[in-house]
């Protein structure tokens, strides 16, 4: 009888001692966090994201009663996305460039003085301290920024007096290293478009700039009255131009790989097209419509698009992120060598989700920042982390 009892208890014990899931550390887990403000009239519009010193830094625009230009917020979270602090820059500083750049242990972006329109370089040190430096340039309206191969900064801005798009290489201390002006052509028809870019969400234009392989610089801005991608060596004239069509066609985003080829998203009125590996006319003049091969109808008409390289799962990939007609955010993963689409990932469900920026994380994951609308109407920042394990699973 005792034997029967032992068997019986053994059966049950199997379950009591069955193994429990070993939980991952919070830093290893994916998350989706939303940062709420109880002010009915508050509105946050993130434009840049970086991970520095174990914190996420979210560069965000906010409404100002004193100006039509956007004010600047800096939201800091810890490594698991929990809110740490918010810093509002003085209302003097407006119109941040739509990216937060990281060089070494410091973060950088450009903005301008709302009265003089003079560009400023803003430096966020590792401890979160913010320092502003006025740039000694005739340019105003900082449109886009990037990091060069020499770890200096590249600024695309607009000169409303000289009617020029201006590309400037800026040192990390705010010094002007080199600068080139390119005329938008006679007249001033682009002034309204540029002002609206800063003051109306629906009128945002896809300005960007960077440096490609072969020490060639590029910017997507106004040239010859057209939103064009211009290639330059900081000479008097561009070396090549990929022309758009007014503000109705052109490129939304581009990324230069080590081979010198480009991944890009283009638009032709309401249509969008993309390719992960294309040779651009860096020494000639061409038109963006020549790159149009097929429409991707899910990308929304006014979609913000971003492209980043991603090697987190030991593969050379390009991530093309865009906003969809379904008010979600879609990530397309392309192989950088074969230019083949490898995987697709969607963010967002009930409430609309928009895209602002995304970064590759050192742990192989991806972090994405944008806005969602709580209760369908309150625009708030979201931060989402996709872990390396999740990304491995979708391939």
């Amino acid at each position, binding site marked *: *009888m005792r034997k*029967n*009892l032992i*068997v*019986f*208890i*053994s*059966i049950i*014990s*199997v*379950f*009591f001692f*069955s*193994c*429990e*899931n*070993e*939980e*991952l550390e919070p830093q290893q*887990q*994916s*998350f*989706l*966090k*939303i*940062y*709420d*403000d*109880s*002010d*009915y*009239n508050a509105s946050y519009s993130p434009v840049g994201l970086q991970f520095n010193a174990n914190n996420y830094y979210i560069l965000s625009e906010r409404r100002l009663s004193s100006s039509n230009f956007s004010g600047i917020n800096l*939201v800091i*979270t810890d490594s*698991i*996305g*929990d*809110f740490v602090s918010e810093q509002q820059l003085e209302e003097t500083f407006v119109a941040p460039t739509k990216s937060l750049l990281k060089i070494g242990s410091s973060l950088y972006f450009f903005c301008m003085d709302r009265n003089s329109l003079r560009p400023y370089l803003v430096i966020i040190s590792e401890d979160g301290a913010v320092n502003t430096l006025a740039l000694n340039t005739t340019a105003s309206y900082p449109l886009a920024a990037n990091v060069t191969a020499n770890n200096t900064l590249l600024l695309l801005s607009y000169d409303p007096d000289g009617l020029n798009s201006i590309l400037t290489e800026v040192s990390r201390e705010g010094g002007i290293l080199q600068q080139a002006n390119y005329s938008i052509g006679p007249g001033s028809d682009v002034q309204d478009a540029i002002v609206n870019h800063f003051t109306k969400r629906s009128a945002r234009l896809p300005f960007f700039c960077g440096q490609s392989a072969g020490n060639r610089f590029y910017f997507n801005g106004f040239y010859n009255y057209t939103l064009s991608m211009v290639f330059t060596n900081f000479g008097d004239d561009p070396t090549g131009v990929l022309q758009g069509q007014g503000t109705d066609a052109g490129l939304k985003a581009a990324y230069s790989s080590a081979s010198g080829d480009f991944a890009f998203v283009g638009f032709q009125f309401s249509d969008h097209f993309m390719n992960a590996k294309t040779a651009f006319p860096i020494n000639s003049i061409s038109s963006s419509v020549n790159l149009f091969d097929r429409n991707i109808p899910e990308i929304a008409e006014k979609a913000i698009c971003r492209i980043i390289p991603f090697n987190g799962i030991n593969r050379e990939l390009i991530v093309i992120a865009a906003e969809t007609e379904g008010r979600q955010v879609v990530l397309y993963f392309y192989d950088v060598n074969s230019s083949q*689409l490898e*995987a*697709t990932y*969607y*963010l*967002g*469900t*009930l*409430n609309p*989700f928009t895209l602002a920026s995304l970064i590759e994380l050192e742990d192989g994951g991806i972090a994405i920042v944008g806005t*969602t609308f*709580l*209760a*369908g*109407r*309150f625009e708030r920042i979201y931060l*989402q982390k996709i*872990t390396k394990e*999740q990304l491995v*699973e*979708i*391939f």
Partner: protein
Amino acid sequence: MPKTLTTQKNLSKTDFMYGSRVLLLTLTFYLFVSAFDGLAQRRKKPSTPASQAQEFLNTQWWLGIRGGANFSQTTLIKSYSGLNPINYSNENLEKEYENFANPAFHIGLDVTFYHKGFSVMSFPTFFRNNINYSSELSWLGNSERDQYKTSYNVKQSITFLELPLAVKYDIIGNKIRPFVMAGAFYSIAFDANKEVQIFETDYASGQPVEFERANIKLNNKEEIKNNWGVLGGVGVSFDFWNIRSIIDIQYRHSFQSIVNSETRFSESTFSSFGEVQDDYSLQNYSASLSFVFPLRYIDSQFKAL
């Protein structure tokens, strides 16, 4: 072929665990069969009618089915929200739980080994727990009309495959036997569903106007993990014909959170509007009715104990 992921997946060895559980269930079934087969072999031993009756009275296996209803309450361990407040307190986001509000059912087997007044018993059960909670958000502006409220009313149902082990003592009686019992249980998360009703209140005209914005019901098993705890209860058994009927009332108490912290903040339909689970433990009152049959010496002379 490119693959698409629209929802977060639990990456923490879930498939492995599922396989382990199937293996454990198979092993358990095999052990049960082996044990009862061993008993069947013993039936062949010759014995006198008097000693047979005495042994029957003193020692017996019982097997049957049981079912009933239960009510759950939660004990909050730590509060969480998918929203991170920038300019107000986290306390504003805390949830309110309704205790013992929503009955649920359970059904399973009853296996008892009786020996001289004491019983060792297990009753593997599909045990559902229903939990209700709500939370509110509000936004205020400069005027009365700049007000807006959102409330989330959540109904969470969780089904565990519960595997208890308890000791029961029959206090007195023959045909009617009151008893007390105590033991422990291990619960395997089997299924979970969460329903969220979202109500909005708009003050656009100065007066509150409430409307239901959405009612979302989805499976969320990945948010729940296995559980364990202790149980105790009282009851009474009645013997009629060859069937023993048992009525019992039990209390279960678990000490640790049943919420999977790994998936709490994962992207999902719920987290996309800020609804995530707190850490909470479960307590539960249940009332059950069992019908059990003796497994030994079933013949034409049999009289149920």
